[in-house]
């Protein structure tokens, strides 16, 4: 009996030991949780730019030439998604608006000594939705450490495979209607996202250390507001037509007007991806004049 009792003690010891070892693994400390906390602290930070002395940049992205015909997406295998589209869903690579402008162009401040070194508060979470088996928005910008709420509104399996080059990516899945949070800790323009289940689903995210970014809308318009006065290199990025840059001077209380023009001839342009953004690099100020 003594031996039996001791064997029981041994069993209990092994069990407790194993549980302790499991416990020592520690709790999950996901990036998103950590960055949420960081985001709350950052939200409390004041914007370093004095609105009374700030200016704005507004503009549009024009498109010249014949708009290329985009392929129709065959969603017949996903009736839930197909039913969400009134017409035939089209690939979103090139979206030319009725007024001859170009949508989904990411416009951002690439260089600018006036904001160099400034610490900006992190905005609240940005939303990336998967609705009708397409990403909405197709192109978006966020700040470093800004939470990105990724929503699955379709209720069927999507995965979000982000493949940055300057930082670790993620490949998370959403089998049902749900939301998850992600963020990026390093500035990078642009980061491609794709769904491996639905090969047509692609999106691009630009990550910056500042809030001066915009995406041309259904009218081709964009705006960058509340910039300190100074000279900036503003770049426009498109997933097929590459990039264009302009030097823009912002004056206190003024609004600079900028127009970028992409053309059908640029279809074979080199599209930079995963470019680190360094506000210290001023070489382009002269190059792009």
């Amino acid at each position, binding site marked *: 009996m003594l031996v*039996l009792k001791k064997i*029981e003690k041994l069993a209990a010891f*092994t069990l407790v*030991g194993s549980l302790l070892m499991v416990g020592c693994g520690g709790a*999950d400390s996901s990036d998103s949780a950590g960055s949420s906390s960081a985001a709350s602290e950052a939200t409390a930070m004041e914007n370093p730019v004095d609105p009374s002395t700030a200016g704005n940049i507004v503009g549009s992205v024009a498109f010249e030439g014949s708009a290329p015909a985009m392929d129709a997406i065959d969603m017949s295998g996903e009736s839930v998604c197909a039913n969400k589209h009134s017409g035939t869903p089209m690939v979103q690579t090139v979206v030319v608006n009725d007024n001859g402008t170009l949508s989904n162009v990411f416009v951002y401040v690439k260089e600018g000594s006036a904001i160099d070194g400034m610490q900006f508060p992190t905005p609240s979470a940005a939303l990336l939705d998967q609705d009708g088996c397409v990403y909405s928005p197709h192109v978006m910008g966020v700040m470093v450490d800004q939470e990105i709420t990724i929503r699955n509104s379709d209720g069927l*399996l999507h995965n979000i495979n982000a493949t940055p080059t300057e930082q670790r990516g993620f*490949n998370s899945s959403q089998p049902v209607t749900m939301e998850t949070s992600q963020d990026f800790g390093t500035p990078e323009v642009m980061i491609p996202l794709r769904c491996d289940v639905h090969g047509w689903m692609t999106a691009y995210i630009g990550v910056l250390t500042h809030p001066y970014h915009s995406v041309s809308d259904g009218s081709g318009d964009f705006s960058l507001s509340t910039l300190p006065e100074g000279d900036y290199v503003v770049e426009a990025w498109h997933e097929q037509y590459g990039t264009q840059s302009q030097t823009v001077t912002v004056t206190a209380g003024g609004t600079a007007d900028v127009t970028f023009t992409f053309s059908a001839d640029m279809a074979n342009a080199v599209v930079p991806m995963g470019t680190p953004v360094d506000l210290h690099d001023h070489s382009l100020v002269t190059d792009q004049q």
Partner: protein
Amino acid sequence: MSSAIPVGDSHSEDHHDLGFIRTYIFSTDHKMIAKQFLVTSLLFLALGGMLAAMIRWQLGFPGQPLPFNLGAILPDTMAPGGIILPEFYNSLVTMHATFMVFFALMPLMAGVFGNLLIPLQIGADDMAFPRINMLSFWITPVAGAIMLASFFVEGGAAGAGWTSYAPLSTSGEWTGVYLGQILWLVSLIVLGFSSITGALNYVTTVIAMRAPGMTWFRIPLATWSLFVTAWLLLLAIPILTGGLILLLLDQTIGTAFFRPEGSGEPLMWQHIFWFFGHPEVYILILPAMGFVSEVIANRSRKPVFGYHSMVVAIVAIAFLGWVVWGHHMFQSGMNPFLGMSFMATTVVIAVPSAIKTFNWIGTLWKGDIHFDTPLLHAVSFVALFVIGGLSGIFLASAPVDIYLHDTYFIVAHLHYVLVGGSLFGIFAGITFWYPKMFGRMMNETLGKLHWGVSFIAYNLAFFPMHNLGVQGMMRRIYDPNQYEFLQSLQSTNTFISKSVFVFVSVQVLFAINFFWSMRKGKKAGDNPWDSNGLEWACPSPPPHGNFAEIPIVHRGPYEYSYPGREQDFWPQNEAPVESFGASTKPEHKPGE
């Protein structure tokens, strides 16, 4: 009427002086180490079973929250709202197989029974290197803790499958798992030392410490199979460890042994892994064959049919196991002529396997069969191993394998070998040698109930998987309903899942029986099965040092129902009447 030589250095005298820690924790006694392995590996077996149940929940009820609010204990990175995420599913299949293969079946086979049986069956007082033996055990929980910890790191546990194919395993970019994959590698590297040190002990002990008269062909088949398995471990584990180290270097310091982007060769990983991996299959099945041989001979009260051919078959299977690894890689683009030679060597393995199967049947034939729990498990092993072996013949044929590769047919095949074969063999072994380990019998009613429900539920779960595979359902797939042509299989998947839940649940009966019998089971006595082996010639449980006197072996281990004897068994150490009192020199008849 037994014969023995007095033990000069009796271990039993100092047994009570060791204290609790050295007796039960850091013990060098092979029997206590066997029990430590038993408790640890049964815990990992339970964990692996729970992971299997979660896998089957996802396949049976895709997209539905885990039942009983189990999702509440899992973080959102695994199962938000109780719904298993695909990346967690990848970890589940990877870790299920990892725990089952490396932390449950291997320790149960080699760690438990190697430690328990080898010294007892050959008449030794302990292992050749008791301290190394202790080290061999204590490496296991350390490796297990590392592996378990991987569930709790960012990105979760490894998700590249237990085969960890490169380049999927060389970078977290593909699976989303970074540190978890590294911990998987480190854990298995550490665990390899446990296997190597254990195997070194087994080989040395069998060669050097056999009792007088224990000639090679008087060694019981359980020890024969464990001895051959130890050689496989000694030769195979370093190959895996080498590969794991190279993969770890690829993961951590940017080497490119297996990464194609650095001019590495992903296929080399497959060659290394399967050069270890196929002998590993025999590491997981050969000991069970040995246990089953013992049980069938004992419970049918007949000598093992063709003892010598059984030994030769064990060695032949182990040898052929080294030249068949390519049959796992028919789809890797290998030269078809090479594939054909692997196909031929693989089919040849059917010969020694068939020898064993027919010998088991021959042993049972016209025997005085006692249908108690160990025999039921042993006979189940034979039946299920035959099914697993036959499906293996299908897969050994390259043209058929091209169609069935990476489908659920493979899942069915490997589970018929490793659950139907190995696990039922382990159950046969545990229920047979339990009285020797703990001095009490397991409850027969509970034992038979556990066997019956397990056998039925097991077959209901795994046999339909053959059909799933033929229909094209891929292994490791998260949700087959993503493919229209697989949607019609959902009802089968649900049925399989329910059967698995029954199979997993009924193991609770075994656990209850296991622990209840320790205290309440009928006292066993030294030799409850009227068996011949030396392990039954010492008390149950045996004291430290095992034998008061070194036994002398006079005959083989399977002299059951020997003509002219009053008893239907004839212990190996029982002196022949004609030489009794005249000489201790062992005789070599009958059944050497």
